[in-house]
Protein backbone atom coordinates (compact mmCIF):
# COMPACT_ATOMS: atom_id res chain seq x y z
CA UNK A 1 0.00 0.00 0.00
CA UNK A 2 1.27 3.50 -0.82
CA UNK A 3 2.15 5.62 2.19
CA UNK A 4 0.28 8.92 2.35
CA UNK A 5 2.59 11.74 1.25
CA UNK A 6 0.51 14.61 2.55
CA UNK A 7 -2.00 14.90 5.37
CA UNK A 8 -5.37 16.46 4.56
CA UNK A 9 -7.28 17.43 7.72
CA UNK A 10 -11.07 17.77 7.59
CA UNK A 11 -12.22 21.38 7.38
CA UNK A 12 -15.38 21.06 9.42
CA UNK A 13 -18.15 23.60 8.94
CA UNK A 14 -21.87 23.99 9.46
CA UNK A 15 -22.15 26.37 6.51
CA UNK A 16 -21.96 24.65 3.11
CA UNK A 17 -19.30 25.77 0.68
CA UNK A 18 -21.14 25.77 -2.66
CA UNK A 19 -18.12 27.02 -4.63
CA UNK A 20 -20.21 29.84 -6.06
CA UNK A 21 -17.19 31.59 -7.56
CA UNK A 22 -17.10 28.71 -10.06
CA UNK A 23 -20.80 27.74 -9.97
CA UNK A 24 -22.73 31.03 -9.94
CA UNK A 25 -25.92 29.25 -11.17
CA UNK A 26 -27.05 32.42 -12.95
CA UNK A 27 -24.33 31.61 -15.52
CA UNK A 28 -22.92 28.32 -16.77
CA UNK A 29 -20.10 27.01 -14.55
CA UNK A 30 -17.06 29.21 -15.07
CA UNK A 31 -13.78 27.84 -16.38
CA UNK A 32 -11.04 29.30 -14.21
CA UNK A 33 -7.30 28.82 -14.56
CA UNK A 34 -4.44 29.00 -12.16
CA UNK A 35 -0.85 29.15 -13.36
CA UNK A 36 0.69 28.52 -16.77
CA UNK A 37 0.26 25.45 -18.95
CA UNK A 38 3.41 23.85 -20.34
CA UNK A 39 3.99 22.16 -23.70
CA UNK A 40 7.30 20.76 -24.97
CA UNK A 41 7.85 21.83 -28.56
CA UNK A 42 10.99 20.86 -30.48
CA UNK A 43 12.77 20.18 -27.20
CA UNK A 44 11.88 23.55 -25.68
CA UNK A 45 9.52 24.28 -22.80
CA UNK A 46 6.77 26.63 -23.96
CA UNK A 47 4.36 28.21 -21.48
CA UNK A 48 0.79 29.18 -22.32
CA UNK A 49 -1.31 31.52 -20.19
CA UNK A 50 -4.87 30.22 -20.51
CA UNK A 51 -6.12 32.84 -18.06
CA UNK A 52 -5.38 35.49 -20.69
CA UNK A 53 -8.37 34.23 -22.70
CA UNK A 54 -10.58 36.46 -20.55
CA UNK A 55 -9.03 39.55 -22.11
CA UNK A 56 -8.43 38.19 -25.61
CA UNK A 57 -10.89 38.95 -28.38
CA UNK A 58 -11.91 35.35 -28.97
CA UNK A 59 -14.91 34.92 -31.27
CA UNK A 60 -17.21 32.39 -32.85
CA UNK A 61 -17.62 32.00 -36.60
CA UNK A 62 -20.34 29.97 -38.22
CA UNK A 63 -20.67 27.62 -41.17
CA UNK A 64 -24.26 26.44 -40.71
CA UNK A 65 -25.10 27.43 -44.29
CA UNK A 66 -21.98 25.84 -45.80
CA UNK A 67 -20.65 22.80 -43.90
CA UNK A 68 -23.97 22.56 -42.06
CA UNK A 69 -25.86 22.19 -45.32
CA UNK A 70 -23.53 19.47 -46.57
CA UNK A 71 -25.13 17.17 -44.01
CA UNK A 72 -28.79 17.62 -44.89
CA UNK A 73 -31.20 18.53 -47.66
CA UNK A 74 -30.86 22.21 -48.58
CA UNK A 75 -32.59 24.87 -46.53
CA UNK A 76 -35.04 27.12 -48.33
CA UNK A 77 -34.08 30.74 -48.71
CA UNK A 78 -36.72 31.81 -46.18
CA UNK A 79 -35.40 29.29 -43.66
CA UNK A 80 -31.83 30.52 -44.01
CA UNK A 81 -32.84 34.15 -43.68
CA UNK A 82 -34.78 33.36 -40.51
CA UNK A 83 -31.91 31.33 -39.04
CA UNK A 84 -29.48 34.14 -39.87
CA UNK A 85 -31.77 36.64 -38.15
CA UNK A 86 -31.95 34.47 -35.00
CA UNK A 87 -28.21 33.91 -35.07
CA UNK A 88 -27.66 37.64 -35.07
CA UNK A 89 -29.88 38.03 -32.01
CA UNK A 90 -28.07 35.17 -30.29
CA UNK A 91 -24.59 36.64 -30.82
CA UNK A 92 -25.72 40.05 -29.57
CA UNK A 93 -24.47 43.55 -30.27
CA UNK A 94 -20.82 42.70 -29.60
CA UNK A 95 -20.82 40.25 -32.47
CA UNK A 96 -19.68 37.23 -30.50
CA UNK A 97 -20.89 35.26 -33.53
CA UNK A 98 -18.74 37.35 -35.82
CA UNK A 99 -19.04 35.75 -39.23
CA UNK A 100 -21.03 33.20 -41.20
CA UNK A 101 -20.14 31.85 -44.61
CA UNK A 102 -22.27 31.26 -47.70
CA UNK A 103 -21.99 29.29 -50.89
CA UNK A 104 -22.03 31.59 -53.92
CA UNK A 105 -22.54 29.19 -56.80
CA UNK A 106 -26.26 29.13 -57.51
CA UNK A 107 -28.94 31.76 -57.98
CA UNK A 108 -30.48 30.63 -54.67
CA UNK A 109 -27.11 30.97 -52.90
CA UNK A 110 -26.76 34.53 -54.07
CA UNK A 111 -30.36 35.48 -53.29
CA UNK A 112 -29.97 34.07 -49.76
CA UNK A 113 -26.89 36.18 -49.22
CA UNK A 114 -28.61 39.30 -50.55
CA UNK A 115 -31.65 38.82 -48.33
CA UNK A 116 -29.57 38.15 -45.22
CA UNK A 117 -27.53 41.27 -45.81
CA UNK A 118 -30.71 43.25 -46.46
CA UNK A 119 -31.70 42.62 -42.83
CA UNK A 120 -29.03 45.18 -41.99
CA UNK A 121 -27.44 43.27 -39.10
CA UNK A 122 -23.86 44.23 -38.31
CA UNK A 123 -23.15 40.65 -37.18
CA UNK A 124 -22.62 37.93 -38.22
CA UNK A 125 -20.66 39.39 -41.12
CA UNK A 126 -21.33 37.48 -44.34
CA UNK A 127 -18.37 35.82 -46.01
CA UNK A 128 -18.10 33.47 -48.99
CA UNK A 129 -16.74 30.04 -49.67
CA UNK A 130 -15.22 29.07 -53.01
CA UNK A 131 -12.89 26.57 -54.60
CA UNK A 132 -9.27 27.61 -55.11
CA UNK A 133 -9.99 28.76 -58.64
CA UNK A 134 -9.14 32.21 -59.88
CA UNK A 135 -12.40 32.47 -61.78
CA UNK A 136 -14.43 31.99 -58.60
CA UNK A 137 -13.36 35.40 -57.31
CA UNK A 138 -15.72 36.95 -59.81
CA UNK A 139 -18.57 35.53 -57.70
CA UNK A 140 -17.11 36.99 -54.52
CA UNK A 141 -16.59 40.36 -56.13
CA UNK A 142 -20.08 40.41 -57.65
CA UNK A 143 -21.57 39.58 -54.28
CA UNK A 144 -19.70 42.51 -52.77
CA UNK A 145 -18.03 40.39 -50.07
CA UNK A 146 -14.84 41.47 -48.38
CA UNK A 147 -13.68 38.00 -47.40
CA UNK A 148 -13.95 34.49 -48.72
CA UNK A 149 -12.80 31.10 -47.67
CA UNK A 150 -10.93 29.07 -50.27
CA UNK A 151 -9.82 25.47 -50.29
CA UNK A 152 -6.09 25.07 -49.87
CA UNK A 153 -5.89 21.40 -48.95
CA UNK A 154 -2.55 20.56 -47.39
CA UNK A 155 -2.18 16.83 -46.73
CA UNK A 156 -0.55 14.63 -49.31
CA UNK A 157 -3.80 12.62 -49.33
CA UNK A 158 -5.41 15.67 -50.91
CA UNK A 159 -2.47 17.18 -52.79
CA UNK A 160 -1.56 14.01 -54.66
CA UNK A 161 -4.56 11.70 -54.47
CA UNK A 162 -7.47 14.12 -54.67
CA UNK A 163 -6.16 17.18 -56.51
CA UNK A 164 -3.63 15.20 -58.60
CA UNK A 165 -0.79 17.70 -58.37
CA UNK A 166 2.51 16.34 -59.54
CA UNK A 167 4.47 17.92 -56.70
CA UNK A 168 4.00 19.98 -53.57
CA UNK A 169 5.73 22.92 -55.28
CA UNK A 170 3.18 22.87 -58.09
CA UNK A 171 0.38 22.75 -55.55
CA UNK A 172 1.75 25.63 -53.50
CA UNK A 173 2.31 27.77 -56.59
CA UNK A 174 -1.27 27.16 -57.71
CA UNK A 175 -2.70 28.11 -54.32
CA UNK A 176 -0.55 31.22 -54.17
CA UNK A 177 -1.70 32.31 -57.62
CA UNK A 178 -5.29 32.19 -56.38
CA UNK A 179 -4.39 34.12 -53.23
CA UNK A 180 -2.71 36.71 -55.45
CA UNK A 181 -5.90 36.90 -57.51
CA UNK A 182 -7.87 37.56 -54.33
CA UNK A 183 -5.54 40.39 -53.37
CA UNK A 184 -5.90 41.86 -56.85
CA UNK A 185 -9.68 41.76 -56.55
CA UNK A 186 -9.50 43.44 -53.13
CA UNK A 187 -10.88 40.36 -51.36
CA UNK A 188 -9.36 38.96 -48.19
CA UNK A 189 -8.57 35.26 -48.66
CA UNK A 190 -9.19 32.86 -45.81
CA UNK A 191 -7.06 29.86 -46.65
CA UNK A 192 -8.65 26.64 -45.48
CA UNK A 193 -5.83 24.23 -44.68
CA UNK A 194 -7.92 21.15 -45.40
CA UNK A 195 -6.81 17.88 -43.77
CA UNK A 196 -4.23 19.73 -41.66
CA UNK A 197 -4.12 17.05 -38.98
CA UNK A 198 -2.93 14.53 -41.57
CA UNK A 199 -0.45 16.83 -43.32
CA UNK A 200 3.34 17.10 -43.39
CA UNK A 201 3.63 20.16 -41.19
CA UNK A 202 7.34 20.93 -41.64
CA UNK A 203 7.45 19.77 -45.25
CA UNK A 204 4.43 21.66 -46.62
CA UNK A 205 2.20 23.50 -44.15
CA UNK A 206 4.74 25.80 -42.54
CA UNK A 207 6.49 26.73 -45.80
CA UNK A 208 3.10 27.46 -47.40
CA UNK A 209 1.91 29.60 -44.51
CA UNK A 210 5.24 31.43 -44.39
CA UNK A 211 4.79 32.26 -48.07
CA UNK A 212 1.23 33.45 -47.39
CA UNK A 213 2.48 35.71 -44.63
CA UNK A 214 5.17 37.08 -46.91
CA UNK A 215 2.55 37.79 -49.60
CA UNK A 216 0.26 39.33 -46.99
CA UNK A 217 2.98 41.71 -45.87
CA UNK A 218 2.81 43.28 -49.35
CA UNK A 219 -0.92 44.16 -49.14
CA UNK A 220 -3.02 46.34 -46.85
CA UNK A 221 -3.77 44.80 -43.44
CA UNK A 222 -7.47 44.30 -44.22
CA UNK A 223 -6.56 42.01 -47.12
CA UNK A 224 -3.93 39.92 -45.31
CA UNK A 225 -4.65 36.21 -45.46
CA UNK A 226 -6.45 34.43 -42.67
CA UNK A 227 -5.67 30.81 -41.90
CA UNK A 228 -8.37 28.27 -41.12
CA UNK A 229 -7.00 25.13 -39.48
CA UNK A 230 -9.27 22.43 -40.84
CA UNK A 231 -9.36 19.20 -38.85
CA UNK A 232 -11.20 17.65 -41.76
CA UNK A 233 -11.39 14.11 -40.39
CA UNK A 234 -11.57 14.94 -36.67
CA UNK A 235 -8.05 13.66 -35.97
CA UNK A 236 -7.01 16.66 -33.82
CA UNK A 237 -5.84 15.96 -30.26
CA UNK A 238 -6.07 18.42 -27.39
CA UNK A 239 -3.77 16.60 -24.95
CA UNK A 240 -0.44 18.23 -24.09
CA UNK A 241 2.44 16.10 -25.34
CA UNK A 242 0.62 14.75 -28.40
CA UNK A 243 2.71 14.71 -31.58
CA UNK A 244 2.24 16.69 -34.76
CA UNK A 245 0.30 16.75 -36.98
CA UNK A 246 -2.49 15.79 -34.56
CA UNK A 247 -1.49 18.12 -31.72
CA UNK A 248 -3.71 21.21 -31.63
CA UNK A 249 -1.38 23.05 -29.20
CA UNK A 250 1.65 22.50 -31.42
CA UNK A 251 -0.19 23.34 -34.65
CA UNK A 252 -1.39 26.65 -33.28
CA UNK A 253 1.95 27.47 -31.69
CA UNK A 254 3.84 26.89 -34.92
CA UNK A 255 1.47 28.94 -37.06
CA UNK A 256 1.12 31.68 -34.46
CA UNK A 257 4.64 31.96 -33.06
CA UNK A 258 6.87 30.53 -35.79
CA UNK A 259 5.04 31.65 -38.94
CA UNK A 260 3.78 34.84 -37.31
CA UNK A 261 0.07 34.48 -38.11
CA UNK A 262 -1.64 36.76 -35.57
CA UNK A 263 -4.28 35.13 -33.36
CA UNK A 264 -7.04 37.21 -34.93
CA UNK A 265 -6.26 35.60 -38.29
CA UNK A 266 -6.32 32.02 -37.01
CA UNK A 267 -9.50 29.96 -37.03
CA UNK A 268 -10.15 26.37 -35.92
CA UNK A 269 -12.58 24.22 -37.91
CA UNK A 270 -13.21 20.79 -36.40
CA UNK A 271 -15.15 17.62 -37.14
CA UNK A 272 -16.64 15.20 -34.68
CA UNK A 273 -15.52 11.83 -35.97
CA UNK A 274 -13.97 10.93 -32.61
CA UNK A 275 -16.35 12.82 -30.30
CA UNK A 276 -13.68 15.45 -29.64
CA UNK A 277 -15.10 18.32 -31.57
CA UNK A 278 -16.25 20.69 -28.84
CA UNK A 279 -13.23 20.29 -26.59
CA UNK A 280 -10.91 20.64 -29.56
CA UNK A 281 -12.53 23.98 -30.40
CA UNK A 282 -12.11 25.22 -26.84
CA UNK A 283 -8.51 24.02 -26.89
CA UNK A 284 -7.86 26.04 -30.04
CA UNK A 285 -9.14 29.18 -28.31
CA UNK A 286 -6.89 28.61 -25.32
CA UNK A 287 -3.71 27.99 -27.33
CA UNK A 288 -4.03 31.15 -29.39
CA UNK A 289 -6.64 30.77 -32.13
CA UNK A 290 -9.14 33.62 -31.85
CA UNK A 291 -11.87 32.06 -34.00
CA UNK A 292 -13.67 28.78 -33.54
CA UNK A 293 -15.82 27.79 -36.49
CA UNK A 294 -19.15 26.17 -35.61
CA UNK A 295 -22.54 25.04 -36.90
CA UNK A 296 -25.92 25.18 -35.22
CA UNK A 297 -26.48 21.99 -33.22
CA UNK A 298 -23.27 20.60 -34.67
CA UNK A 299 -24.86 19.67 -37.98
CA UNK A 300 -22.15 19.26 -40.59
CA UNK A 301 -20.39 16.88 -42.93
CA UNK A 302 -20.55 13.28 -41.58
CA UNK A 303 -20.38 13.55 -37.78
CA UNK A 304 -20.61 17.32 -37.77
CA UNK A 305 -18.77 20.35 -36.48
CA UNK A 306 -18.38 22.13 -33.12
CA UNK A 307 -21.94 22.96 -32.04
CA UNK A 308 -22.47 26.70 -32.05
CA UNK A 309 -24.62 26.65 -28.93
CA UNK A 310 -21.95 24.74 -26.99
CA UNK A 311 -19.32 27.21 -28.11
CA UNK A 312 -21.61 29.96 -26.79
CA UNK A 313 -21.68 28.40 -23.33
CA UNK A 314 -17.93 27.73 -23.45
CA UNK A 315 -17.42 31.37 -24.36
CA UNK A 316 -19.49 32.58 -21.40
CA UNK A 317 -17.70 30.14 -19.10
CA UNK A 318 -14.29 31.40 -20.21
CA UNK A 319 -15.24 35.08 -20.12
CA UNK A 320 -17.28 34.90 -16.92
CA UNK A 321 -19.94 37.11 -18.48
CA UNK A 322 -22.74 36.96 -21.03
CA UNK A 323 -20.94 39.60 -23.14
CA UNK A 324 -24.23 40.64 -24.74
CA UNK A 325 -25.16 37.10 -25.80
CA UNK A 326 -28.88 36.33 -25.72
CA UNK A 327 -28.86 32.65 -24.74
CA UNK A 328 -32.67 32.42 -24.85
CA UNK A 329 -32.45 32.46 -28.65
CA UNK A 330 -30.81 29.02 -28.50
CA UNK A 331 -34.17 27.55 -27.47
CA UNK A 332 -35.93 29.52 -30.21
CA UNK A 333 -33.46 28.20 -32.76
CA UNK A 334 -33.95 24.62 -31.59
CA UNK A 335 -37.74 24.97 -31.76
CA UNK A 336 -37.45 26.43 -35.24
CA UNK A 337 -35.06 23.74 -36.45
CA UNK A 338 -37.38 21.03 -35.14
CA UNK A 339 -40.30 22.72 -36.88
CA UNK A 340 -38.51 22.46 -40.24
CA UNK A 341 -37.64 18.82 -39.76
CA UNK A 342 -34.16 18.84 -38.25
CA UNK A 343 -33.96 15.99 -35.75
CA UNK A 344 -32.47 16.90 -32.37
CA UNK A 345 -32.01 13.91 -30.03
CA UNK A 346 -33.91 14.18 -26.74
CA UNK A 347 -30.70 13.93 -24.70
CA UNK A 348 -28.80 16.51 -26.78
CA UNK A 349 -27.18 19.09 -24.43
CA UNK A 350 -28.89 22.46 -23.91
CA UNK A 351 -31.76 21.93 -26.38
CA UNK A 352 -32.86 18.28 -26.44
CA UNK A 353 -36.34 17.78 -25.04
CA UNK A 354 -34.92 15.90 -22.06
CA UNK A 355 -31.55 17.61 -21.58
CA UNK A 356 -32.47 18.69 -18.05
CA UNK A 357 -35.07 16.04 -17.33
CA UNK A 358 -34.39 13.50 -14.61
CA UNK A 359 -36.03 10.10 -14.48
CA UNK A 360 -34.61 8.82 -11.21
CA UNK A 361 -36.75 9.31 -8.11
CA UNK A 362 -33.72 10.04 -5.94
CA UNK A 363 -32.71 12.87 -8.29
CA UNK A 364 -36.28 14.14 -8.35
CA UNK A 365 -36.14 14.32 -4.57
CA UNK A 366 -32.98 16.43 -4.89
CA UNK A 367 -34.71 18.72 -7.40
CA UNK A 368 -37.66 19.06 -5.04
CA UNK A 369 -35.41 20.20 -2.23
CA UNK A 370 -33.19 22.52 -4.30
CA UNK A 371 -33.09 22.53 -8.09
CA UNK A 372 -29.39 23.45 -8.06
CA UNK A 373 -28.58 19.95 -6.81
CA UNK A 374 -29.42 18.39 -10.18
CA UNK A 375 -29.56 21.27 -12.66
CA UNK A 376 -26.42 22.41 -14.49
CA UNK A 377 -27.25 26.13 -14.25
CA UNK A 378 -30.35 28.29 -14.18
CA UNK A 379 -31.77 26.74 -17.33
CA UNK A 380 -35.05 28.59 -16.89
CA UNK A 381 -33.33 31.98 -16.88
CA UNK A 382 -30.82 31.23 -19.65
CA UNK A 383 -32.83 28.90 -21.87
CA UNK A 384 -36.47 29.18 -20.73
CA UNK A 385 -36.21 25.50 -19.81
CA UNK A 386 -36.81 24.73 -16.12
CA UNK A 387 -35.55 21.33 -14.92
CA UNK A 388 -38.08 18.57 -15.42
CA UNK A 389 -38.90 15.08 -14.23
CA UNK A 390 -40.04 12.36 -16.62
CA UNK A 391 -42.34 9.86 -15.01
CA UNK A 392 -41.50 6.17 -15.16
CA UNK A 393 -41.46 3.34 -12.63
CA UNK A 394 -38.15 4.78 -11.36
CA UNK A 395 -39.56 8.24 -10.62
CA UNK A 396 -41.04 7.46 -7.22
CA UNK A 397 -43.38 9.79 -5.39
CA UNK A 398 -40.67 12.48 -5.41
CA UNK A 399 -40.70 12.48 -9.18
CA UNK A 400 -44.47 12.62 -9.36
CA UNK A 401 -44.75 15.49 -6.88
CA UNK A 402 -42.04 17.44 -8.73
CA UNK A 403 -43.93 16.97 -11.99
CA UNK A 404 -47.22 18.13 -10.40
CA UNK A 405 -45.67 21.24 -8.86
CA UNK A 406 -43.97 22.16 -12.10
CA UNK A 407 -47.20 21.55 -13.99
CA UNK A 408 -49.12 23.88 -11.69
CA UNK A 409 -46.19 26.31 -11.58
CA UNK A 410 -45.97 26.16 -7.79
CA UNK A 411 -42.84 27.27 -5.94
CA UNK A 412 -41.68 27.59 -2.34
CA UNK A 413 -44.40 27.44 0.30
CA UNK A 414 -47.08 26.97 -2.34
CA UNK A 415 -45.72 23.62 -3.44
CA UNK A 416 -48.02 20.64 -2.93
CA UNK A 417 -46.57 17.93 -0.70
CA UNK A 418 -46.28 14.24 -1.46
CA UNK A 419 -49.27 13.30 0.68
CA UNK A 420 -51.62 15.21 -1.61
CA UNK A 421 -50.55 13.39 -4.76
CA UNK A 422 -50.84 9.85 -3.41
CA UNK A 423 -53.62 8.84 -5.80
CA UNK A 424 -51.62 9.96 -8.79
CA UNK A 425 -48.48 8.23 -7.46
CA UNK A 426 -50.51 5.03 -7.00
CA UNK A 427 -51.83 5.25 -10.56
CA UNK A 428 -48.26 5.64 -11.86
CA UNK A 429 -46.97 2.65 -9.88
CA UNK A 430 -49.90 0.50 -11.02
CA UNK A 431 -49.16 1.33 -14.65
CA UNK A 432 -45.95 -0.64 -14.29
CA UNK A 433 -46.66 -3.15 -11.51
CA UNK A 434 -50.20 -4.09 -12.50
CA UNK A 435 -50.36 -3.35 -16.22
CA UNK A 436 -46.80 -4.20 -17.26
CA UNK A 437 -46.16 -0.87 -18.95
CA UNK A 438 -42.66 -0.40 -20.41
CA UNK A 439 -42.75 3.22 -21.64
CA UNK A 440 -42.51 6.59 -19.91
CA UNK A 441 -45.78 8.32 -19.11
CA UNK A 442 -46.40 11.33 -21.30
CA UNK A 443 -47.24 14.79 -20.02
CA UNK A 444 -50.62 14.55 -21.71
CA UNK A 445 -51.52 11.36 -19.82
CA UNK A 446 -50.43 12.87 -16.53
CA UNK A 447 -52.42 16.04 -17.16
CA UNK A 448 -55.55 13.99 -17.74
CA UNK A 449 -54.94 12.01 -14.54
CA UNK A 450 -54.28 15.13 -12.46
CA UNK A 451 -57.63 16.51 -13.64
CA UNK A 452 -59.35 13.26 -12.70
CA UNK A 453 -57.59 12.44 -9.41
CA UNK A 454 -56.84 15.92 -8.05
CA UNK A 455 -59.93 17.89 -9.12
CA UNK A 456 -59.68 20.41 -6.27
CA UNK A 457 -56.15 21.40 -7.31
CA UNK A 458 -57.10 21.42 -10.96
CA UNK A 459 -59.97 23.78 -10.18
CA UNK A 460 -57.68 26.01 -8.12
CA UNK A 461 -54.74 26.30 -10.52
CA UNK A 462 -56.18 25.44 -13.91
CA UNK A 463 -59.77 26.45 -13.32
CA UNK A 464 -59.88 28.93 -16.16
CA UNK A 465 -58.68 26.28 -18.59
CA UNK A 466 -60.89 23.69 -20.20
Amino acid sequence: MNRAKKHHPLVDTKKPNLLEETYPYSLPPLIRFKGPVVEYIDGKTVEFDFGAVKDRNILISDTTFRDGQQARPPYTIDQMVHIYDLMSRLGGPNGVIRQTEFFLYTKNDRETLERCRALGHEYPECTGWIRALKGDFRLVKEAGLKETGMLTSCSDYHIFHKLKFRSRAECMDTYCEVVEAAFEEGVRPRCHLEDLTRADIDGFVLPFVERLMEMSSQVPEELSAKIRLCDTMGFGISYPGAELPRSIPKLIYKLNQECGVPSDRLEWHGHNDFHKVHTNGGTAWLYGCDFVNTTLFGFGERTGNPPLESAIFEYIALKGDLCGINTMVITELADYMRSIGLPIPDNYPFVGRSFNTTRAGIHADGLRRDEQIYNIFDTEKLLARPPRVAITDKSGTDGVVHWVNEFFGLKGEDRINKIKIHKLARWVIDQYDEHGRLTAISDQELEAKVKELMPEYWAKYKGSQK
Partner: protein
Amino acid sequence: MATVEERVKAVTAQVLKLDPNEIKLEDSFTADLGAESVQSIELVAMFEEEFGIEMEEDAALSVETVGKAVEFIAQVCKEQGVVTDDR
Protein backbone atom coordinates in the same frame (compact mmCIF):
# COMPACT_ATOMS: atom_id res chain seq x y z
CA MET B 1 -66.08 4.82 19.17
CA ALA B 2 -62.85 2.95 18.33
CA THR B 3 -59.59 4.07 19.92
CA VAL B 4 -56.78 5.80 18.01
CA GLU B 5 -54.84 2.54 18.13
CA GLU B 6 -57.72 0.55 16.65
CA ARG B 7 -58.29 3.11 13.93
CA VAL B 8 -54.56 3.28 13.06
CA LYS B 9 -54.43 -0.52 12.83
CA ALA B 10 -57.57 -0.60 10.69
CA VAL B 11 -56.20 1.96 8.22
CA THR B 12 -52.83 0.18 8.13
CA ALA B 13 -54.53 -3.13 7.45
CA GLN B 14 -56.62 -1.64 4.69
CA VAL B 15 -53.73 0.11 2.91
CA LEU B 16 -51.25 -2.74 3.29
CA LYS B 17 -53.89 -5.45 2.77
CA LEU B 18 -53.26 -7.18 6.12
CA ASP B 19 -55.32 -8.71 8.91
CA PRO B 20 -55.70 -5.96 11.59
CA ASN B 21 -55.39 -8.58 14.34
CA GLU B 22 -51.87 -9.43 13.21
CA ILE B 23 -50.61 -5.84 13.47
CA LYS B 24 -48.61 -5.10 16.64
CA LEU B 25 -47.64 -1.72 18.07
CA GLU B 26 -43.94 -2.52 17.76
CA ASP B 27 -44.22 -3.42 14.07
CA SER B 28 -42.18 -1.31 11.67
CA PHE B 29 -44.27 -0.16 8.71
CA THR B 30 -41.49 -0.96 6.25
CA ALA B 31 -39.41 -3.78 7.78
CA ASP B 32 -42.24 -5.79 9.38
CA LEU B 33 -45.37 -4.84 7.45
CA GLY B 34 -43.68 -4.41 4.04
CA ALA B 35 -44.81 -0.87 3.23
CA GLU B 36 -43.26 0.39 0.01
CA SER B 37 -42.54 4.04 -0.77
CA VAL B 38 -45.92 4.86 -2.27
CA GLN B 39 -47.72 2.92 0.46
CA SER B 40 -46.06 5.08 3.11
CA ILE B 41 -47.55 8.11 1.39
CA GLU B 42 -50.92 6.39 1.14
CA LEU B 43 -50.81 5.53 4.85
CA VAL B 44 -50.24 9.16 5.82
CA ALA B 45 -52.97 10.30 3.44
CA MET B 46 -55.43 7.74 4.81
CA PHE B 47 -54.58 8.67 8.43
CA GLU B 48 -55.28 12.32 7.57
CA GLU B 49 -58.62 11.35 6.06
CA GLU B 50 -59.56 9.00 8.90
CA PHE B 51 -58.83 11.55 11.64
CA GLY B 52 -59.59 14.75 9.73
CA ILE B 53 -56.16 16.20 10.39
CA GLU B 54 -53.23 17.66 8.40
CA MET B 55 -49.80 16.24 9.14
CA GLU B 56 -46.43 17.77 8.40
CA GLU B 57 -45.02 15.67 5.56
CA ASP B 58 -41.45 15.02 6.70
CA ALA B 59 -42.43 14.45 10.33
CA ALA B 60 -45.23 12.04 9.41
CA LEU B 61 -43.05 10.07 6.98
CA SER B 62 -40.31 9.71 9.58
CA VAL B 63 -42.57 7.75 11.94
CA GLU B 64 -41.33 4.17 11.83
CA THR B 65 -43.64 1.97 13.92
CA VAL B 66 -47.37 1.53 14.45
CA GLY B 67 -47.04 2.51 18.11
CA LYS B 68 -45.18 5.72 17.23
CA ALA B 69 -47.86 6.49 14.65
CA VAL B 70 -50.55 6.16 17.32
CA GLU B 71 -48.67 8.60 19.57
CA PHE B 72 -47.93 11.00 16.71
CA ILE B 73 -51.52 11.06 15.46
CA ALA B 74 -52.93 11.47 18.96
CA GLN B 75 -50.63 14.45 19.47
CA VAL B 76 -51.60 16.03 16.12
CA CYS B 77 -55.31 15.52 16.91
CA LYS B 78 -54.81 17.26 20.23
CA GLU B 79 -52.94 20.16 18.60
CA GLN B 80 -55.59 20.55 15.92
CA GLY B 81 -58.52 20.21 18.32
CA VAL B 82 -59.78 16.95 16.89
CA VAL B 83 -61.67 14.85 19.42
CA THR B 84 -60.71 11.17 19.73
CA ASP B 85 -61.93 8.43 22.07
CA ASP B 86 -58.55 8.34 23.84
CA ARG B 87 -58.98 11.52 25.87
